[in-house]
């Protein structure tokens, strides 16, 4: 244990160690719900559905209905499990977890109790933003598949008054992968790094859009603190579970707050960890504090037992291999490839990787034969601007990877100027024609021809508004040439080759 001025125990002469484990719920973006063909609210097509419109008799748990398992939910879970280096259970089963709540139509949740689909995994997280950071392995105990509950509202949408609570079952039956880590985190930053990386992995696997505001991922840290006093005695504070955090900021804030709060609480009451002492707290985003929800977890008796409406899932070698083969390149490997093999700057690699669709588009352009550095530069400087303006990803702008690869090649060969790249990309997005044809059609082919350049350069030098710049260049002030080149480019509507223009101006003014 090292002394740390940021340790909330330091002021009291205590050394404290934070111990955090995470439970993470990931809503899988299958087309249909887990047990029925009704649409899944976590799928991009249905996130804004009107309340109670994504239902079926099965989703409402009407008498006589039965669940039938969605194959895609199992396959997505297996993929996540493999990506998290987990073992995949050969046989796993479905269990009922009983508790009564108005948003849980059957009053039991179908889950996996003693045999999770994925178990014993983990991955390395970097401990800093350095170029070559230290890493730490985080163990994943299990990842099991279960169904989400509906939502309980306390007012009408838009704030209309209700004298009761209102149940919307759109979310009920959404497949949910619950990932449980070992209590391996010692700082809030470590936990947030892990959450971020997990989100990236899941997004690259295509199992979720990972949009936090929509609740696609929810985090529940289990937090306690080991306190060491001056006498070297250690005390473990009771574990607190903070429920339903849906932003990285909240995860960070809740862990930091609990660290301080638990140390202070221990100084007042001296309570330490013991049987049935796990309490549940919520996070107040405005006040940035956790608040007590339930004192003791042992009030629950979930009465797990095997769901007799469902049969076991057997993931045999063939199925497992099929899933393994279908795994895309994961973000960590992709990043390494982008930097080491494709020579992107780390920051550029990260920008592309932040959106799996953009990274995939980049890969497709490279596959179409384009140079990686030029492609990276073009996508990040030009294409991304357009994507941001349209609030979408590169793949949805309309230009095929082949078109973009062709455009990048034209840039490399000086067939177009960099200022022509943006309009040409725009034309590519609107048309199926090759960039060569489009550049010709729109007069974007770069001109290095002497006669044409002479005429443009002469016109610019003769322009009285630019007389000062001309004088400056003559006087040897090199920077002034920029204004003249710019004017020629404008005059030529981007067609002039700027290098040739620059040479031509120097030639004429020094001559």
């Amino acid at each position, binding site marked *: 244990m090292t002394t740390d001025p940021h340790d909330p125990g330091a002021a009291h002469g205590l050394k404290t160690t934070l111990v955090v484990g995470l439970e993470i719920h990931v809503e899988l973006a*299958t*087309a*249909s719900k887990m047990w029925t*063909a*009704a*649409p*899944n609210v976590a*799928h991009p097509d249905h996130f804004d*559905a*009107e*309340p*109670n*419109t*994504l*239902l*079926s*008799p099965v989703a*409402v748990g*009407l008498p006589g209905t039965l669940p*039938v*398992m*969605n*194959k*895609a*939910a*199992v396959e997505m879970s297996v993929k996540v499990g493999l990506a998290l280096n987990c073992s995949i259970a050969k*046989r796993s089963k479905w269990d009922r*977890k009983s*508790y009564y*709540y*108005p948003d*849980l139509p059957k009053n039991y*949740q179908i889950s996996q109790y003693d045999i999770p689909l994925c178990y014993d995994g983990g991955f390395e997280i970097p401990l800093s933003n350095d170029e070559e950071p230290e890493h730490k392995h985080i163990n994943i105990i299990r990842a099991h598949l279960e169904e*989400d*509950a509906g939502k*309980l*509202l306390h007012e*009408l949408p838009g704030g209309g008054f*209700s*004298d*009761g*609570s*209102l*149940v*919307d*079952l759109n979310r009920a039956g959404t497949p*949910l992968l619950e990932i449980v880590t070992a209590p391996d985190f010692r700082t809030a930053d470590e936990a947030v790094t892990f959450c971020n990386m997990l989100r990236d992995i899941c997004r690259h696997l295509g199992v979720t859009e990972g949009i936090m505001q929509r609740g696609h991922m929810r985090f529940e840290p289990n937090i306690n603190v080991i306190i060491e006093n001056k006498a070297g005695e250690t005390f473990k504070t009771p574990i607190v579970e903070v*429920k339903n955090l849906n932003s990285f900021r909240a995860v960070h804030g809740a862990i930091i707050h609990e660290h301080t709060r638990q140390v202070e609480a221990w100084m007042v009451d001296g309570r330490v960890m013991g049987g049935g002492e796990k309490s*549940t707290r*919520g996070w107040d985003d405005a006040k940035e504090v956790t608040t007590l*929800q*339930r004192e003791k977890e042992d009030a*629950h008796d*979930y009465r797990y037992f*095997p769901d*007799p409406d469902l*049969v*076991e*899932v*057997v993931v045999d070698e063939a199925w497992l291999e099929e899933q393994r083969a279908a795994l895309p390149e994961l973000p960590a490997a992709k990043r390494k490839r982008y930097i080491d093999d494709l020579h992107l700057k780390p920051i550029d690699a990260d920008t592309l990787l932040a959106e799996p669709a953009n990274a995939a588009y980049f890969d497709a352009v490279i596959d179409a034969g384009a140079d990686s550095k030029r492609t990276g530069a073009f996508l990040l400087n030009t294409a991304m601007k357009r994507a941001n303006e349209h609030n979408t990803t590169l793949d949805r702008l309309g230009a095929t990877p082949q078109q973009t690869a062709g455009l990048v090649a034209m840039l490399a060969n000086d067939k177009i100027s960099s200022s022509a790249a943006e309009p040409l990309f725009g034309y590519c997005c609107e048309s199926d024609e090759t960039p060569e044809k489009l550049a010709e059609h729109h007069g974007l082919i770069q001109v290095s021809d002497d006669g044409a350049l002479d005429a443009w350069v002469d016109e610019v030098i003769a322009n009285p508004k630019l007389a000062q710049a001309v004088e400056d260049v003559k006087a040897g002030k090199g920077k002034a040439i920029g204004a003249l080149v710019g004017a020629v480019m404008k005059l030529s509507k981007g067609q002039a080759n700027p290098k040739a223009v620059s040479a031509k101006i120097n030639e004429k003014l020094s001559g």
Partner: protein
Amino acid sequence: MSNQAQPISEDDVRHVAKLARLTLNDEQVHHFTDQLGAVLGYIAQLGELDVEGVEPLAHPLDLVNVLREDVAQPGADRDAMLANAPDRQDAFFKVPKVLGDGGGA
């Protein structure tokens, strides 16, 4: 398995009724304690058997991997889904005000 003369107490019955969300009055608790006690006493004969190493049989069918392709159908008509609700407000099922977090998911 309990070998006591009375396999279940009135307190047990109250606890179980609470878990099962059933309001019982004292007379019912008393009555059910006797009846459940008799049945549990009968069930206790399962304790005679040596079941060490026997694989539990939760389900008679030996099926595995009964799975559905992930194809969404349109959501059901909302009014049909809400038609049996004892109380509703607009598009929602309605219950008396629920305070705090009682869920377990």
